[in-house]
């Protein structure tokens, strides 16, 4: 936990430093009449840096026994989260090519079949029903023009 905490705080610190640098180099801190577009980002970035530094200090000085165990899952649990994220990313990537409805159906089917080990029969029925219902509600109620793919749906 301690290492992860330090990495996260360091990331926040660097992000804050980047914001401060961008605010001073690319944006005006003051305009003719008052604060410019760089004013708030500069102070927010600086505050981010100070808070991250304080947090890092807190983590370093805090007794080791008060740091929790490993925060992220390992083994099968980690694989399940990674597979889910990959399925989501691939489905979103495919949405404009194969169409929103098809990609969404594939996404649900992959989740049910790979992560939850549903039978292919159950998977097929559930994925088609869920995807079609969501799609129909949003396109019928608010007329959203979802991307259509090579199949025209």
């Amino acid at each position, binding site marked *: 936990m301690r290492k992860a905490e330090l990495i996260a705080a360091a990331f926040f610190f660097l992000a804050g430093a980047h914001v401060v640098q961008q605010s001073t180099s690319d944006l005006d801190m003051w305009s003719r*009449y008052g604060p410019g577009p760089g004013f708030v980002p500069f102070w927010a970035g600086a505050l981010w840096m100070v808070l991250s530094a304080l947090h890092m200090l807190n983590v370093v000085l805090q007794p080791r026994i008060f740091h929790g165990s490993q925060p992220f899952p390992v083994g099968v649990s980690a694989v399940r989260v990674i597979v889910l994220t990959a399925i989501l990313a691939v489905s979103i990537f495919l949405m404009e090519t194969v169409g929103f409805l098809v990609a969404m159906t594939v996404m649900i089917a992959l989740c049910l079949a790979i992560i939850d080990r549903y039978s292919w029969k159950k998977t097929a029925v559930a994925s088609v029903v869920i995807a079609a219902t969501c799609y129909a509600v949003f396109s019928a109620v608010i007329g959203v023009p979802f991307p259509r793919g090579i199949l025209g749906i």
Partner: protein
Amino acid sequence: MDVGSGLLQGFATALTPANMLFCLIGVLVGTAVGVLPGLGPPATIAMLMPLTFGRDPAAGIIMLAGIYYGAKYGGAITSILVNVPGESSSVMTCIDGYQLAKQGKGGTAIGVAAIGGFFGGTFAVLGLTLLAPLIAQFALSFGPPEYFALMLIGLCAVTFLGGNSMLKGLMMAAFGVMLAVAGSDEMSGTERFTYGQTNLLAGIDFPVVAIGLFAVAEIMAGAEEVLRVSVFLPPKSWREVLPSPAILWRLVPTYIRATLLGFFIGTLPGGGASISSFLSYGVEKSVSKEPEKFGTGVLEGVGGPETADNAAAGAALVPVFTLGVPSSATSAILMAALMMLGLRPGPLLITEHPDFFWTVVASMYIGNVLLLIINLPLAPLLAKTLKAPYPLLYTSVLAICMVGVYSINNSMWDVWVSLIFGVIGYIAAKLDYPPAPLVLGLVVGPLAERTMRQALTFSRGDYGVFLSSPVSVGLLVVCAAFLFVPMVRSARRWNAQRKEQEAVATA
């Protein structure tokens, strides 16, 4: 328009079939969200917000507010029968609620919670009815410095929403502010932090971030293991849910205490429903003649927290409608929904859009009655929904997330951004970084920036403008207290930990 005629007119509009339907959908969805663990009101409101676009703003907010307070009722059922809080504010209900379920009194506990929820919720709407016009009238005299101080209070309130660490809460709020400044600067038109991406010119929409942080991240966390929900002795008929008159009479003082406490805490920035239910449990235990029985299945331990939770939920809308300051992630999302529907939350809302305001208020009275009707006789049916297979549930939520996010701007970019925030939210949750302050920073950040720049422009850069009025000074003092109190608390905890370590070392 005075309160009486405003409310009557509000009822006339709220009772139209279309508005009643939106209210019913809202409270039904809210109850379902409360019952089913894993999906909270912030994500649901953000996901379903696109359904309200292009419609009458009152109808849209009636539905979204229904989800908000409806979830409070539903959360009790899961806490009592499954020992899992459907909502963070239902944690205290688990303690005695589950014990009652184990003794075969789960139905009575659900009934006590629903009636308490109705009591607290209705009183909170009454408070909103009476107080909102007065507060709005007072706030009309506020200028940019006072508004900036108010927004600062909203941001500092994250110290109470920040979970275990005030620093982490503040860091997430600063993250939200940083996200909010990305895009075109509304005062000068200058591009900020767009990195040449045209998609970023209009900024990052908060529902996209909220859906990622609250829904996608939650589903990722749920994917870690196979979730098995075991429901403990659900009530078989509505008769089991209805408490006896003697029990209700005994609980009247509890309901009154919890309502007053919940309403007071709910109106405070950062107060929120969770704190009020925690405090209410403590109060009930301290006034009880048999405090040792708390934790073994005491009806006061269910009625108090549930009543306070519902009262706080209604009360949290007072600062949103009258001052434009949200006190929790859900009320921040509701406030942003108001802005997306073309309304400006704040003191002018009641004067400029009285029809809207009174219709929403009237709908909340109706919504609470609907919720009581739904939750008492339909409790056995609602309990059965807990047996719905989780895989079908989370894949449905994922599908709604995708279509919901895409519908906001008809943009695939938003879908990607939502996935990215899902991953960020998952990592943040693992490292104990709370997501609520980020949403608050994202919503309140632009308002704070605008008012601060307006104030400094009027004063030609003189920072003394923030100390020029007693109201502004008072609000800044409150701000300082928000930061100072948790700091002292942290320092004390730190000292205690040090002493504990020394004791371990010497032992």
